[in-house]
């Protein structure tokens, strides 16, 4: 890993630093947290929509 780090830093300093120093893994962790958060938010939004649809249907049925 150290050898890979030195190679990357010599050839392309920014990318070498990013991937070699472990910062890429930090970005990966943040990206995964955001992805999971987005997925849960969509799940929750769909559940709320379903609940509202059901309530509305009941209301319409009772009115009719």
């Amino acid at each position, binding site marked *: 890993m150290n*050898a*890979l780090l*030195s*190679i*990357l830093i*010599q*050839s*392309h300093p920014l*990318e070498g630093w*990013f*991937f070699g120093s472990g910062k*890429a*893994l930090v*970005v*990966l962790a943040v*990206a*995964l947290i955001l*992805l*999971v958060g987005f*997925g849960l938010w*969509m*799940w929750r*939004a*769909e559940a709320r*929509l379903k609940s*509202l*649809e059901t309530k*509305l249907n009941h209301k319409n049925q009772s009115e009719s």
Partner: protein
Amino acid sequence: MGHNVWKIGGFALIAYVLVMVFAVPMGPGLLELRATGKATATEESGRALPEYLLTGFGTHWSDQSSQLQVVVRSKTNLAKLEVIEVIDDTHARIGVALPYSLPSKSWDVLINHPTDGTLLLENGLFLSDRFIDESLTLPPISIVELQDDLPFHFPYQPRILESIRNLMLHVPMWFTMFVLMGIAFVASIKQLATARALIEDEKSEAAVKVGLLFGFLGLVTGSVWARFTWGAWWVDDPQLNGALVTVLVYSGYMVLRNSIDNAPLRARLSAAYNLFAFIILIILLMVLPRFTESLHPGKGGNPGFNSYDLDSALRAAFYPAVIGWILIGIWMYRINLRFTRLQKLLK
């Protein structure tokens, strides 16, 4: 739970793709062979040779440095260069022991190394100070193509380098947009064909809204990639301009919808507009760029990320990325559609 598997699958695929994007290392490649302006005497040739500095990317020349071979190639002619010294894993001093009379000025550079395999730098050596006679042939030498001995890695691409990882974020945005705009196109045809309820109009609107989001993301990821590989955030290129015009055309669809209060009229007009918008999308993004000069891969005669350079490592991340983003896009569309319907019901 069963009917939700595809939703979880979409996110699981993108999580897997993100791990691949950030954790898989790049394979080795050659960056340049540059003249240093010095001449160095070597034991092998016994005379002073023009010295060049060979620079690699992610190479391992310090390991088994004596095994490093450097060869130049022009058509069928091959000539061996002398390795004066391996400085470190990515740098080596090379002596160019070529005769004054040569069959070509421009030469591909090939290296052979047990760890990195055979690497190629196209037109890496240009000799402007030689006598050129295209009928000349150099004495034949034998070279064996080696496979690298490295763990799983993404392939090295000249100029693109580490930004190849963006392939898994940029291209699937457009694939997802195509799918969503396709859904909107079908819904618009149904709307015009049936012209009864506004169900298909709602579908079309929801699909275009989410499709536009993916279109904007495609533009942003493409612009960032262009800055890295072409040196500018935006270049006057048919593919790029076509993508921007397509997104603007679909933005016009949303403007049109919002400008008409009468719902049945809005449904008919926007459905008709959407048919033309989809045809424009096909023409601007898939047809025209193939017949014009373009910097973009896969267009204007440039090789795309196809069998030529999309190797098995990239496929293992790219295909799941396409499927994952499409699944997420469809889920977003469905939520948007249900939300729109609920809003209308509540009104």
